[in-house]
């Protein structure tokens, strides 16, 4: 996340202001109606605030002073004054509701709208794009960055209403007395500039604190993720030092923020008071000159008091702009990201579920424009046949699996299913034809049923059970169900509906956690449930123990599945399933053919698949040698 820093240097501050206003304008265009309501409410509030000041003044001048001087209350005027104050208060509440609710609804709607857009984009962008971006970055793009982009929306209607109110206030001051108005003309701009200066001082410090927060958080995430390694290597102290250093920087940054706040807040609070005091002095002079009366002095003094707070809303909008722009930039980076792999429109005739043929021709591929990891790979999985992909660690096998399921597109060459380029196939045609079981199984935070069926049409409970049986996952699923029943309320979290038969048991992070082998079997069941016509198994049973694996292979070998199979494996039994073996080294197909033929002619292959036997034979030899040696 370190590259996502909010850098707000003084040099491009002006650019930030302009761009920030651009972001605000976009928000207004997205939600014009609710914005209008909120601003209307805010203007109403502002006018009533000014109105209240004059009513307070008028009540003082026309009711309080005459009544006290005459020693006799004028009931009608008194009632009118009180009623006016009450009425203004009720109207102000109306204004507050429109302003705050309007602003809130606008902000939340924008957040939701852009969260939807960003996550839609995630679903559209190819796996290669996902691999280029860290999980943490993508999470914060959809959450914190969207939130930051629309932060200034909350005070925006208030700020707009305040601008209107300031103009009206100065106007009204001139109507009362031009000399008092001059005091206002001195105080309001001073207040305004102080707010602007405050925001400018604050923004870079806030940005730095925010950046350090992200870094502290990233260190904690990584360190807790790797807690086992930290523990087994006894590196707790070193990790704490790494974290503590950054936490210390964050502390210093936050203290800097606090100092700016400490310097500005009390002054911002005192400035309007000075205005009020100035009004008293100037008011006394003007009063002596007979230009105004006491009611006017009270009105203006009250006005200064109530205007100070709204002026700060303008400061809030300004101070949030840099963060908003930074957030928006990151959101926009996602929204404008290219490299989508649009699906085609072609469909495939599924020939009543008959197996599909896969063919790769001269396929070259490199991750992220880097060095190719595959060079001109050509091979075929004929319909109904099983092909084993064999090669040393890091030779490009998983990449071929991804290409077959069109998680990535080749840089050169073609991948065809039943003779059709996979890039031309529609999404349903592709998903309905190929199923990939990855090396590391992903389990959704959902029920067993949801994880296997994935809401696909035609995958009912029977199909789910059938798939679980094939994947040897029916046993533990049933056990999960009965465990959930047995433990009842105490572990209700593990099952939403009591888990009558295990299908309702929630697995994944918030549910029951599964062992590596169980996760792999669940992922296999997911693939089988869709009755694919081509099954791609990427070392998909590596965490399953030999006996269970043997049972799975026996089931796959049986007639229950009618699919072509591309299988990545090292084990003989799995390879024995295959009609043909494709042997890979350093991203190139080195040899193709039957197992026996390759064993005889390709030393690398022979070396790989007979490694265990050879090791055993060698041990036998050494042992024999030792036995001969020892007595001698």
């Amino acid at each position: 996340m370190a590259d996502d820093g909010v850098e707000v240097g003084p040099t491009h501050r002006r650019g930030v202001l302009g761009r920030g206003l651009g972001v605000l304008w976009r928000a207004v265009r997205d939600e014009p109606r609710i914005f209008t309501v909120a601003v209307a409410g805010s203007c109403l509030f502002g006018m009533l605030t000014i109105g209240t000041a004059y009513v307070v003044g008028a009540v003082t001048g026309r009711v309080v002073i005459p009544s006290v001087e005459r020693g006799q209350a004028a009931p009608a005027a008194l009632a009118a004054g009180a009623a006016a104050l009450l009425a203004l208060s009720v109207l102000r509440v109306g204004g507050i509701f429109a302003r705050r609710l309007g602003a809130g609804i606008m902000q939340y709607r924008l957040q939701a709208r852009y969260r939807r857009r960003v996550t839609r984009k995630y679903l559209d962008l190819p796996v290669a794009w996902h691999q280029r971006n860290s999980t943490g970055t993508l999470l914060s793009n959809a959450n914190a960055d969207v939130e930051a982009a629309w932060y200034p929306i909350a005070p925006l209607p208030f700020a707009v209403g305040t601008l209107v109110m300031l103009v009206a206030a100065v106007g009204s001051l001139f109507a009362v007395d031009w000399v008092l108005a001059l005091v206002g003309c001195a105080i309001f701009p001073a207040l305004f500039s102080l707010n602007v200066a405050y925001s400018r001082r604050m923004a870079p410090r806030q940005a730095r604190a925010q950046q350090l927060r992200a870094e502290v958080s990233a260190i904690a995430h990584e360190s807790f993720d790797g807690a086992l390694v930290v523990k087994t290597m006894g590196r707790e102290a070193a990790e704490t030092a790494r974290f503590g250093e950054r936490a210390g920087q964050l502390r210093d940054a936050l203290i800097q923020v606090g100092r700016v706040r400490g310097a500005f807040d009390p002054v911002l609070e005192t400035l309007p008071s000075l205005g009020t005091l100035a009004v008293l002095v100037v008011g006394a002079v003007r009063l002596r000159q007979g230009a105004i009366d006491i009611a006017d002095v009270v009105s203006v003094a009250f006005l200064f008091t109530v205007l100070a707070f709204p002026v700060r809303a303008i400061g809030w909008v300004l101070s949030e702009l840099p963060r908003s722009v930074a957030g928006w930039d990151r959101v926009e980076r996602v929204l404008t990201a290219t490299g989508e792999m649009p699906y085609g429109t072609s469909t495939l005739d599924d020939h009543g579920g008959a197996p599909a043929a896969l063919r790769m021709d001269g396929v070259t591929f490199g991750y992220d424009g880097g060095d190719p990891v595959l060079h001109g790979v050509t091979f075929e999985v004929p319909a109904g046949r099983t092909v084993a992909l064999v090669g040393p660690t890091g030779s490009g096998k998983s990449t071929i699996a991804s290409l077959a399921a069109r998680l990535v597109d080749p840089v050169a060459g073609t991948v065809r299913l039943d003779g059709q380029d996979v890039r031309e196939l529609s999404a349903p045609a592709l998903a309905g034809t190929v199923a990939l079981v990855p090396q590391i199984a992903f389990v959704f935070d959902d029920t067993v049923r949801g994880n296997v069926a994935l809401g696909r049409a035609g995958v009912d409970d029977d199909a789910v059970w059938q798939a679980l049986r094939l994947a040897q996952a029916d046993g533990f699923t049933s056990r999960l169900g009965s465990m959930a029943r047995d433990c009842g309320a105490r572990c209700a979290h593990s099952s939403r509906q009591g888990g009558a038969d295990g299908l309702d048991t929630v697995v994944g992070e918030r549910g029951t956690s599964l062992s590596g082998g169980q996760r792999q079997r669940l992922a296999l069941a997911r693939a089988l449930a869709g009755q694919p016509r081509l099954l791609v198994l990427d070392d998909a049973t590596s965490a399953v123990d030999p006996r269970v694996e043997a049972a799975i292979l026996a089931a796959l070998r049986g007639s229950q599945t009618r699919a072509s199979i591309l299988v990545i494996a090292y084990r003989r039994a799995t390879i024995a399933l295959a009609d043909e073996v494709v042997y890979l080294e350093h991203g190139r197909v080195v040899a193709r053919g039957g197992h026996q033929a390759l064993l005889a002619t390709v030393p690398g292959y022979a070396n790989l698949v007979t490694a265990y036997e050879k090791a055993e034979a060698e041990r036998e030899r050494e042992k024999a040698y030792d036995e001969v040696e020892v007595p001698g």
Partner: protein
Amino acid sequence: MRAPQRELGCWGEREERACEPRSASWGAAVSGTGEARPESTWRTLRRGLALSPELRTGLAGTLGLAVVSMAGRVAVPVAIQQAVDRGLRAPGGPDLDTVVTIVLATCGVLAVTTVCGYLMMRRLFTVSETALAGVRTRTFRHVHDLSMLHQQEERRGALVSRVTSDVDAITQFLQWGGVILLVSIGQLTVTTVVMAAYSWQLTLVVYAAFLPLALAVRAFQRRLAAAYGAVRKLVGAMLAAIGESVVGAGVIRAYGVAHRTAARLDEAIDAYRSAQTRAMRAAVTSFSAGELAAGLAMASVVVVGVLLGVDGQLTVGQVTAFLFLVTLFIQPVQIATEVLNEAQNAIAGWRRVLDILEVDPDVADPGANGVDLPPGPVDVRFEHVWFAYPAGPPVLRDVDLDIPAKTRVAVVGETGGGKTTFAKLLSRLMDPGEGRVLLSGVPLDQVRFASLRRRVVLVPQDGFLFDTTIAENIRFGRPSLDDDGLMLALAELGLAEWVEALPRGLATPVGERGEALSVGERQLVALARAYVADPDLLVLDEATSAVDPATEVRLARTLDAVTRGRTTVAIAHRLATAQAADEVVVVDEGRIVQRGPHEQLVREPDSVYGRLYAAWLEQTR
């Protein structure tokens, strides 16, 4: 008199003012699991202060400054009253000199209170940030000190939020909520005193006008707390949904289930939005109630004030001052509704942090009371060891076993048989429920961690890598190792060629969690990391399960050679490992069912090992 609603800049007008980056800016951090346990706020505060005595530094001074700066607020209404009565309405026309005197005196008071305000905030920020940075780091360390079992009980996101957003909540509380609450109470008191000095009758009127609001505050606050509780819960659900769409991108694409995922996302996003809107409505309602109360108080003050004035009990200036004082009175009441809610959140966060900090690590370092492992090769003894995970059946039952020094032992058995648990007990990631584990005759729980972690290293199946280079990851095992030493170690393991073939060699970045490397390659790095640590007891838990057979056999042979003279315990489901071991231990349903060299075990008829080996042969031949 000060700007009314001043503090609302951060609290009362929270939705309009994004005062401080809130929990959401921590990215994925979810602000806590579950609701607070019933423990009084005061108790939490006492516990918190006990664990962070730094917070008390100069507390009295800071509070004193806060009170002085707050007192400045009543200066202006008093000045207005004085100016109106003694200056503006002086007999014989406005008396400019008196007004100037009053104004200058007030300016002096304001200067003092402003400086006090500055000093107060400066102290407050410095002390609280310093104290809480300490809490952050201590909590981080403590999380690492907790046993694996404890770490696993909590969601990782929740643990991260203990050291991020929860600590922030405490800071916010200390810097704003707590101080504001105190100051508000002070402000209510001072305002009341000034009002009462002017007129006790009018003071009663003001109190009467605010009475309904004061009674409603608790109800408002409960509603707000519930509404914000819902918001927090739903933001967690939304983040989980987004996380799933990011982490599961491959599966979603491969199975063409983007529509279903999109629907789940929309549901979570919209649920969060409606909760936010509901919370906002509750907040605006309670804020508005304050506004209405203020209007009511103003109107009442005018009516009663005039009547009292007519009666000769009040001056014009005093009535006017009251109108200004009412605006000072309303703030604390309005603030109370929202600050109390924030305070509850902060206290809950503090409680979560304290709950972590106060858990004694159940697998603790004996520290100074401990002993070091005797030098030389390590032998292992399990004495009638039982182990069960919390609320689960026993995973290991009465395991009794001797592993002589310098032997290579393979532990095999079916998934779920307790092999990994065995490895974790051996490296003291957990302690047995019954029985004990001894290394070189020393009970494991008496061995100092500094000695234990240097001499005993476990390589787990998921060899977690840090987001840095291959070199740095290997160096994690021995920080002092230079690049030549690294290459030498890799050469000894037969991995030099592999590293040199990588585009940037040792400097190749491994990506987040090592995801830029293939699963097998990650295991190679993890193995090298353990190898350079140079332990006397090496525990391998399926450490090469994703590596190709030729590499695995080669690694096994080189490890054999280089670890000769050390004790090795390897857990494996590839029986090649067992064949190469000096002794095989077969674990089934938590018990040791067979022991001995491979050749001997294979010959035992109808045994667990026999069946495993038959399945293995069927697969590999």
